[in-house]
């Protein structure tokens, strides 16, 4: 109960900072996502109240943008570019190798592999972002090395 209360207080605090700012709803959601690793459902009504919106409108915004999620990412997040320049540079092979390593590609062994559409590293494709850090000319070896550096134990 006390934890729930402190969450409510913290959410309210974050949202209040963005009331009146340009794009305040999205700015609040971004700040919440960064701090909590997701947007707890509780935030919907708090945002709705503070921005004088309906909860449906707030949910509409949350579901529209790829950066907002309802659940926390487990373990290390590997974002692999799925767009054309990376396709031309063989990102499919990298993805396949990662799936083989991380067994299925989704949330196993503490790694979540996600598609991203363009990281702006198209001249040194394929591109990836591991634990928030950019990797150009990405291959499975470099991605695994970065995962290890971020604290993952990769079985060989």
């Amino acid at each position, binding site marked *: 109960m006390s934890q729930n209360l402190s969450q409510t207080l913290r959410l309210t605090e974050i949202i209040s900072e963005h009331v009146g700012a*340009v*794009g*305040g*709803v*999205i*700015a609040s*959601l*971004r700040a919440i996502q960064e701090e909590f690793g997701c947007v707890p459902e509780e935030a919907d009504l708090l945002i709705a109240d503070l*921005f004088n919106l309906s909860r449906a*409108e707030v949910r*509409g*915004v949350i579901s*529209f*943008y*790829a*950066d*907002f999620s309802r659940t926390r990412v487990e373990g290390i997040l590997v974002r692999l*570019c799925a*767009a*054309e*320049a*990376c*396709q*031309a*540079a*063989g990102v499919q092979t990298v993805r396949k190798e990662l799936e083989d390593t991380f067994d299925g590609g989704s949330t196993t062994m503490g790694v979540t592999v996600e598609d*991203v*559409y*363009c*990281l*702006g*590293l*198209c*001249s*040194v*494709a394929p*591109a990836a*972002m591991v634990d*928030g850090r*950019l*990797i*150009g*000319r990405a291959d499975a070896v470099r991605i695994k090395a970065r995962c290890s550096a971020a604290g993952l134990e990769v079985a060989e």
Partner: protein
Amino acid sequence: MTKRLRLFLPLDSVAISLGADELAVALVRTAEEQGVEIDIVRTGSRGLHWLEPLLEVERNGTRVGYGPIDEQEAGDVLTALVADGSHDKCVGPVEEIPFLKNQTRLIFGRCGITDPLSLRDYQNHGGLDGLHAAQTMRPSTICEAVLDSGLRGRGGAGFPAGIKWKTVSEAAADQKYVVVNADEGDSGTFADRMIMEGDPFLLLEGMIIAGIATGATRGYIYLRSEYPIADDVLKTAIRRAYDEGMLGADAGGPGHPFDIEVFVGAGAYICGEETSLLNSLEGKRGEVRAKPPIPALEGLYGKPTLVHNVITLCSVPLILAKGSTYYRDFGMGRSTGTMPFQLAGNIKHGGLFEAGFGVTLNQLVNDIGCGTRTGRPVRTVQIGGPLGAYLPTSLFDLPMDYETMLANGAGVGHGGLVVFDDTVDLMNQARYAFEFCAEESCGKCTPCRIGAVRGVEVIDRWRSGEEPEQQRAVLDDLCEVMVDGSLCAMGGMTPIPVQSAIKHFPEDFKPTKQTNLAAE
């Protein structure tokens, strides 16, 4: 003891993605160990991306390059630099490298040379000349200069910038805005990112000039969330600009305030479309708005708003500093000035090549980019992002300018070229175009929202051999509906990659026995 070594190393995303930060740390550590005194200036990138991380050293006023340098090579390189400078990875004076020497750098002139976060460095290299000129001109004269220069929107649509400026300028309102579209989501493009990371004051200067000309006093940079380094650089640059009085109460001259804020998006390709960008900036779903009213009259919060791509605004300071005639003399026909072409995908020498319009694809891909990285023959280039055409090598001699590209069913777009070798399957690429549209459609227009999903299904049926002729007819019909029935380019232009692929590479569009590409 030797004299201090002055080193330059990019802070650009590409360089960092290849280990520039680790190299910087290793250089400092080994310099201490070897007792060498060094200064490292973090710059933008020169755009020679196959050489990144490219370390440069100043020798008798000339910058000599070493690249690509791994962190393990730091000690080795440092030893060489203390001696006569010779090293296996030495690429000689950087500005003599043909890739750089053959460019016309009007926009990227400072990128890679100066410290992007030093306003003094910026001014010492011609920065603020355009702003100072604009401060002595009447708003209508500035608009005329932009119109006369022939500058067109660099985001993709190619609309004459001067007409937008005039419209916003003449609109009466209590508040007007300048909004920068830095939602550079097209695969194969990174020019906006590079200039924001490598010369951020240039964008701020362009925005302030736009403010003076249109009467806008607030500017927003809508930046995509996939660009964290650009975000850091821009925010630091803005803070320094306020500290130095470049922004704030007298930014546009005594009594002419101008404020700038960065707004980070939340992962939606569609927000690169100007009206959905404005909705997003208001904190709403990034759904497209119907036009009219045009944003120049009713934009952000219903106020007159000048929405421009990053490169468009970055072209403005030079036009004001050197005059519209100077600018207009570059390029060809109605495509004046320069375009930063971005060589991407499967390319040996990838990077940024700024040139006047009129350069050919052949020159860009084969002469400058040196063909594919895999060494296999080039089969196609997709120009201008996910909504751009796939062109065959038989059209590689066409000059790159707005009119010629349009006449050939393609577009310059934002100047990105994605090169594919002969292993590409164009039916796959056509399918992907629909898949991407289905993923990123804002959902407002039915032909785009539903049509893209149907497009994937039709191609899958075609591939599996289910009445291929009929599928072809359905696909043509579907494309027609999408073009005619979508408010914006997402639905309206997704048919371009699809139909260009079918037109130029019909041999790829045939049934195969494999069904491994069926939707998940």
